[in-house]
């Protein structure tokens, strides 16, 4: 993925200001910054919910700056949400089936039962395993805990076999034990999967990734290895200003 010099403006406000981000295959990135830094807008630009005012978003080698979200998802972008948006009245399995079939040809199929499609089953089973939810596959989502919702969010994103995974504050609202579990979970994801992670909590973010982009007020203020970022004075300032 290559985000090339992207600017997003809403009316008079510039939410993202000339930001570039190039993610190689299998690389793991974190985008950090205080609230209102433009992290989510950058995410939304990548996933297609918002179109860039200037600049380009390239995915897997082609320009997809103005492609609709579903087209990007088809190409292999998976995304989780800060505020979990699951299909609450359905079971875990049904949630994953819907997610998985989105990128297969079977989604147009209305003449055969969903279970006959081996492809989808495999994707669902893999995703369940990856987030350790196999035992809860028939539980209704509304009956589950917040922590399990977070797990399921990731499973949903994974179940469509994405090549690029966008994680929007996967640890938000979790207890410290759950955070640890989540960290382990993300760490254990396949290494060939590129990940971009938004995280407000610097500690979690920096432990999980190889590269970090720091945003403030829509602009890039630093980029580098976790270690560099940890010691970067500007980053410290920005974070101190907030916390």
């Amino acid at each position, binding site marked *: 993925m290559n985000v090339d010099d992207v600017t997003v403006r*809403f*009316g008079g406000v510039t939410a993202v200001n000339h930001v570039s981000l190039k993610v190689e295959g299998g690389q793991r990135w974190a985008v950090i910054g205080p609230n209102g830094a433009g992290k989510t807008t950058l995410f939304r630009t990548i996933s297609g919910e*918002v179109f860039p005012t200037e600049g380009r978003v390239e995915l897997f080698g082609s320009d997809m700056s103005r492609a609709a979200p579903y087209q990007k998802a088809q190409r292999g972008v998976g995304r989780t949400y800060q505020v979990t948006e699951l299909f609450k009245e359905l079971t875990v399995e049904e949630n994953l089936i819907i997610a998985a079939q989105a990128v297969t040809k079977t989604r147009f199929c209305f003449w055969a039962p969903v279970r006959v499609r081996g492809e989808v089953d495999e994707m669902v089973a893999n995703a369940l395993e990856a987030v350790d939810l196999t035992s809860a596959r028939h539980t209704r989502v509304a009956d589950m805990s917040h922590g399990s919702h977070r797990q399921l969010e990731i499973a949903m994103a994974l179940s469509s076999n994405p090549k690029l995974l966008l994680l929007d504050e996967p640890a938000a609202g979790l207890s410290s034990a759950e955070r640890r579990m989540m960290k382990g979970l993300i760490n254990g994801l396949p290494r060939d999967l590129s990940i971009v992670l938004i995280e407000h909590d610097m500690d979690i973010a920096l432990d999980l990734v190889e590269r970090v982009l720091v945003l403030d007020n829509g602009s890039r203020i630093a980029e580098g290895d976790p270690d560099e970022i940890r010691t970067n004075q500007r980053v410290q300032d920005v974070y101190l200003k907030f916390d």
Partner: protein
Amino acid sequence: MTEAAVEAEHVVVDSVVRDRIRVLIITLAIAIPLIAWTLTQMSTLAFFTQILNGLSFGALLFFLASGFTMIFGLMRIANLAHGGFYLMGGYVGITTTLVTGQFWLGLLAGGLVISCLGLFVERILLRRIRGMEKPEVLLTIGLTFVIGDFSLAVWGGDPRQIEKPEYLKGAFQIGDSFFYPKYRLFVLALAILLGSFLFYIDRKTKIGAIVRAGVDDRETVAAMGINIKAVFTGAFIFGAFIAGMSGVIGAGFLSLLPGEDFVILLFALVVVIIGGLGSLEGAALGAVVVGLIDAFAKALVPELSFFTLFAPMAIILMVRPNGLLGRAS
């Protein structure tokens, strides 16, 4: 969260201006050739009379639609019982006028009785399913059936009209050849009055500010310490009041009879859908557009008069799913 909110707000502000200009241009582009063609089909005098016809019918529609759109804007309830309110309000007005001989009392009674009904509906029925879009719609459509049937039981199935006061009967005459019904001019004036009143409330008073804030963000209003439930009830009652009153007004030149509730509801729907649900300006614009389309279509292509009403609506919705002046929901 905040970032998203800022984003959303700016999208709205920015697009509103651009949108309105675009709407204006498209409207003109369609309207001008149509007007030119129409003028070749009828005399200039008839043309202007038809415009008046459209406007005065639109005035009645504005009465209906403003209540509907206000309730929707604030509470997100598409109150399909609005047509039932109209019908029953009209009947109440007719009976009151028959008994007292006073048109104005009838107008008031129609409004008041329906606002009581509105109070009941909002407090007892709708409150139980607050915020659930579909149950609300289904409940109000059920309500329409009940109100319609109740009206049939009480007032019978004969078409009814209201006895107008002497000074509103007959035609207003200019010169030898121009006649126009006084009553229709009266309805037009009344609608302009109501419109100005509503706009004044909306823009200049505290209630208006609360209502507008409520439209944008209900949580914020609740957080401001305002009793949002009371505001909802008030708005619903007021909406019902205008609906009841419009029934009485309508009974002056249309008929009240079983089934009219749905016909008039559909007119109101078309108005607010074309104008944009929840927008007062939208209701005004929609009412004028629908009134004019109705008047001219009936004169020029009578066989298609329903089609000419619903087809533009469908097209507008395909192009602008939120109506001409509506905002993204």
